[in-house]
């Protein structure tokens, strides 16, 4: 069964460092998303991406964040200068066009900022 894969599964970084989280969505999906979940809190939307551009972003997704689909298969989330409060589980998801709400999630990348 096709699945969304994310790397790394866990990354530890120092405050102020750049981090890139990688995702390989399901191949025929057209909509891509990043969500995050701070420990003990709700799953929060960060950004959605369609047709090679951001379609929506939340207020969390400030100038420190960026997304890219560099080669037609990978979908990356970059955090330019990490803060302590960026520590969270980051989930990538993808979905087919026109299929409401049926997102396929990866297993997540746990980011720990020290």
């Amino acid at each position, binding site marked *: 069964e096709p699945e969304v894969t994310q790397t790394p599964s866990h990354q530890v970084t120092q405050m102020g460092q750049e981090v890139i989280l990688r995702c390989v969505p399901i191949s025929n999906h057209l909509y891509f998303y990043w969500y995050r979940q701070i420990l003990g809190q*709700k799953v929060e*939307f960060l950004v*959605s991406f369609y047709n090679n551009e951001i379609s929506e972003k939340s207020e969390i997704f400030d100038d420190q964040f960026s997304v890219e689909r560099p080669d037609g298969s990978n979908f990356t989330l970059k955090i330019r200068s990490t803060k302590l409060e960026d520590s969270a589980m980051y989930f990538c998801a993808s979905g087919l066009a026109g299929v*409401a*709400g049926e997102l396929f*999630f990866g297993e997540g990348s746990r980011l720990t900022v020290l």
Partner: protein
Amino acid sequence: AQSVTQLDSQVPVFEEAPVELRCNYSSSVSVYLFWYVQYPNQGLQLLLKYLSGSTLVESINGFEAEFNKSQTSFHLRKPSVHISDTAEYFCAVSRFGNEKLTFGTGTRLTIIP
């Protein structure tokens, strides 16, 4: 903007007992409603969804949820739980196809043998 409330952060239930996980939503427009499940150390998986039509929707593993527009609720139920149902359950809404999902805070379901 829409929001989702899951009042129960943790629900312990004896094996083979029934369970109900509560979800209420708030929105000024019509929404689609979803339940996602997160098993330990895994990503979220769609459990069931309500888009339109029959207000009672079912999953393949015995869960069901009923959309109640007047009470703005979408509670999840199962008549008899198993150990394998141990997971975190998230209620979510969206306004239209492919729009972002807005999640509740989740309910951790613990099955007691």
